[in-house]
Each structure stands twice: as structure tokens, then as C-alpha cells.
């Protein structure tokens, strides 16, 4: 494909639109899902099945006044929500949805996603600090300590997959899982890996994605029972909206990564549709699991959260790394 200005602009618009539409409608899905789990109707007034709720919410949020608390650091206060949204959109650039649908395939694709995910935690930090609110500050410190803790097992697990694939190219990782459903990375013994611990790596990765995106049961940064609301306590109007959209965009990115690394990307289990639809199906099944988990598990404590990472997930993933390296050497 020739790189023209037109192509670039179209790719950028599609990436932003995909992130924004997903964010808006995942809020709706989340509310409907929560309502279903809690045996109530949920938003069902505006439009069929309440489908008009997200645009109306958007209009409401945009019509509200953006208040900046006195004594807050204005520049950082405004920059933080933008920073929450921007890494997620950047990550969409390199995610391959199918053989042909990828804006820019890079041979360091995995690294690029994690590099921009790392930018996200600065947004939490600045949001909490710049609002000059003790609760927001505590929430952001919690959220960042959690992100830092869970980044480690996540990266180690990713290195395991990268070692098996021998490449950091997301396309290449998917190509190596093509074939039958059994050659997906999550299934041990049949695929390239011959690694019996692969389901465990999948679980570790998925848990870390939950924690990295600050979702329940790891949403300590948004503990409304102790911290008023969380790091976005002082944000109203679209500032709050951007944090919200950033969270959902990050969930989409996390699910995309899980799909690519473990579930064979756009590989079809048994034909039927072209690959990109399989990618979308896997993606939304994972997101549905995210929502399902959020409304079924209670929030953990901060000690439980940090202990889980430092005492269980990191040793396990390190062991997994060594085990995989050994297997790759032997076979």
C-alpha cells in the first residue's frame, strides 16, 4: 500500500472513531450487563434497547461546564484526561485486525503497545496530583502502584509468548498460530509451544489486563466507598468523559492483545466468516468476560491486590519463563 496523506488521514480517523464508538457503546453494554446481573432493566428508555443512551450521555457531558478546582495545576489538570485517551488510540495503529486491516505493521509491535500502555499511568498520576484533592491523590497513588506491580508479570508472560513465536511482530505471532484451533497459543501440546503451562500464562495475562485497566475486582483507584470517586473526583463534564472513554479503549486494547497473543488473532476455528469477524467475535467475548467479572466479584483490598502480584503472579510467570526457555532448548 502506498503511503499517501489520504491513507494516513483515513487510518487516523478510523482509529479514533473505532476507539470512541467502542468506548461509548461499551458503557452501554456495561450498564445493560450490570442491570442483567442485578436483575433490573438498565437503560432502556432512549431508543430501542436504550441504544441512544451513549450519544445522549455524550451530549450531556459536553454541555456541562468544565470546572477547575481552585489551587489546582491548570495545565496538568487539562492534560491528564487527554493523556488517558491518547495512548490507547496510538496503540490501535499497530494492532492487526486481519491480514489486511492494519494501519502500520511494525516489527516491534508488542513493544509499541506496552510502551504506550506505560504512558497511561502518567495520566493517572497527573490527574490525582493536579486536582489538589487528598482523595484523588490517594487514588492515583494506588492506581499507579497497581499498574506498576502488574506490568511486570504481564511483560514476563508476554516475553514467554514472544520467545515461542521468535518475533515481536504481531502479524507474525498470529501467523504462527494459524491452522487449526489447536495451534492457538492457549492450547498446550499441540501448537508450536508444546508448553503445558500455556493456559496458566493466559490466565496470568488476563488477570494482569484486568488490573492494568483498573477494572473490578482490581479497581482500587476508583473505590467510591472510601475515596469519594477516585483519581477523577474533581473532574466533571468531558474531562470525566475522557477518563471513562480511555478506560474502555484500554479494555479494547487489552482484549485485542489477549486475542492476538493467545487466541490466534483472526484465525478461524472452522471457517464460516472471513478472519476479521472472528477477531471481532473473540474480542467482544473477552470484553463481555471483563464486564461479567466486574459485576460478579467484590473489590479486593490493596494488600490482597499487591500481594497477588508480587508474591504469586511474578514468581509464577518467572517460573513459566524459565520452563518455556528450557522447553524451547530441549525441543
Amino acid at each position, binding site marked *: 500500500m502506498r503511503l499517501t496523506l489520504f491513507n494516513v488521514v483515513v487510518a487516523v480517523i478510523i482509529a479514533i472513531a473505532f476507539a470512541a464508538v467502542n468506548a461509548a457503546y461499551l458503557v452501554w453494554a456495561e450498564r445493560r450487563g450490570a442491570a442483567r446481573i442485578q436483575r433490573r432493566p438498565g437503560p432502556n428508555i432512549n431508543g430501542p434497547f436504550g441504544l441512544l443512551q451513549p450519544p445522549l450521555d455524550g451530549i450531556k457531558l459536553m454541555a456541562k461546564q468544565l470546572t477547575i478546582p481552585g489551587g489546582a495545576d491548570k495545565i496538568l489538570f487539562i492534560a491528564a484526561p487527554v493523556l488517558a485517551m491518547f495512548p490507547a488510540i496510538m496503540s490501535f495503529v499497530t494492532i492487526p485486525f486481519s491480514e489486511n486491516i492494519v494501519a502500520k505493521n511494525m516489527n516491534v509491535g508488542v513493544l509499541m503497545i506496552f*510502551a504506550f500502555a*506505560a504512558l497511561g499511568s502518567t495520566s493517572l*498520576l497527573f490527574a490525582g496530583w493536579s486536582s489538589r484533592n487528598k482523595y484523588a491523590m490517594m487514588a492515583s497513588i494506588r492506581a499507579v502502584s497497581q499498574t506498576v506491580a502488574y506490568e511486570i508479570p504481564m511483560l514476563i508472560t508476554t516475553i514467554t509468548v514472544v520467545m515461542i513465536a521468535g518475533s515481536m511482530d504481531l502479524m507474525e505471532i498470529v501467523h504462527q498460530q494459524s491452522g487449526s484451533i489447536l495451534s492457538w497459543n492457549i492450547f498446550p501440546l499441540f501448537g508450536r509451544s508444546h508448553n503445558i503451562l500455556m493456559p496458566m500464562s493466559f490466565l496470568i495475562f488476563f488477570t494482569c489486563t484486568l488490573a492494568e485497566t483498573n477494572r473490578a475486582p482490581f479497581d482500587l483507584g476508583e473505590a467510591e466507598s472510601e475515596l469519594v470517586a477516585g483519581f477523577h473526583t474533581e473532574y466533571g463534564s468531558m474531562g470525566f468523559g475522557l477518563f471513562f472513554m480511555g478506560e474502555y479503549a484500554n479494555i479494547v486494547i487489552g482484549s485485542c492483545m489477549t486475542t492476538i497473543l493467545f487466541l490466534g488473532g483472526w484465525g478461524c476455528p472452522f471457517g464460516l466468516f472471513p478472519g476479521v469477524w472472528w477477531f471481532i467475535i473473540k474480542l467482544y467475548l473477552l470484553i463481555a468476560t471483563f464486564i461479567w467479572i466486574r459485576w460478579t466479584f467484590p473489590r479486593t483490598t490493596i494488600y490482597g491486590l499487591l500481594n497477588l502480584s508480587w508474591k504469586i503472579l511474578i514468581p509464577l510467570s518467572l517460573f513459566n519463563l524459565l520452563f518455556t526457555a528450557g522447553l524451547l532448548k530441549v525441543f
Partner: protein
Amino acid sequence: MNQSMLTHPNLFTVEGMAGVVFLILIFVTLTGGFIACTSRRVVRAIAGLIVCFVGVAGLYFFLNSPFVSMMQLLIYVGAIAVAISFAVMLAAPEEKKKLGPTGPLEGPLAFGSAALLAGGFSVLVLKTKWPAMAKTNDGSIKEIGIRLLTEHSMVFELISIVLLIAILGALVLARRED
């Protein structure tokens, strides 16, 4: 630097646009560094530092080394800047950086030494014959890994000694009882 880069390319060609991107990246880096040095609020200084790191990552990307650029983001922004801000946030948010005179080199002497340094660097930059570096490899991870563990293994080992010293220093500081 070859001949084509010494002449001024048209702004609306690929080289011209690349030059503009390069200048923007340099501007971002310098602005970030300036904010980091002069800001009175420590957290804002960290924000400047992050902007500076992002600019440097962009420069690496521009110089055809995506791996180094992504590592710059991952390590410097994701780890180091966050670690610094953790340390700062344990202090009170309204704490201000002290900007008064701190040492005997403050004032005219500082200006003199800074001018000397800047002049020296400028002379160096202008007098040196910069050789045009050929693109040695594709900058892929495999290539970098092979080079790092064969040709440049000494550098690799020395860096690990630096890290070891940093860990030891942290331990010494943490265990000091006073």
C-alpha cells in the same frame, strides 16, 4: 551528511517534511528539558521531563531505530518518570523547588562556564567532519541482540555494573540510620 542534505530541500518533498518532523521533535525535546529545569513545581518538572523523553523517543524513531525508541518510552517514561513522581508525591503537593543561589558558581561564574561549554560544543560541532554513517542493519531486535552480545558485549557488561552500583547505592542509603 551527504550532499543532498546540505542543500535545502523543498518543504513539500519527502525530505522537506522529514526535516520539519525532525525540527518539531527537537523543539519538543528542548521544551521538555527547559520546563524540567525551570519549573517551580516539582510535578510540573516531571511532566517536562516526560515530554523531553517522548521527544527523544521520537528522535530515535526518526533515526530508523523503532526498537530503541519504544524502549525509551517503556523504560524512561513508564518506569523512571513514574518512579520519580512516586518519590515526589510522598512529599506534600505544594512543596516548591528551591530556586535561589545554591553554590559559589551561581551568577556570573555560572554564565561564564556555561558560555565556555556552549562555545566549545559549537566549535566541536562545526569543526568536525561528520562522516555519513551507512545504514548498517535493519534495526530489528534480532540484529540488535546479536550485536549486543558479540561486538558490543563489553558495553553490555559495563552497563550491568552501573545497575549493580545503583542497587548497592540504594541499599546503602536505605540502611543508613540517622
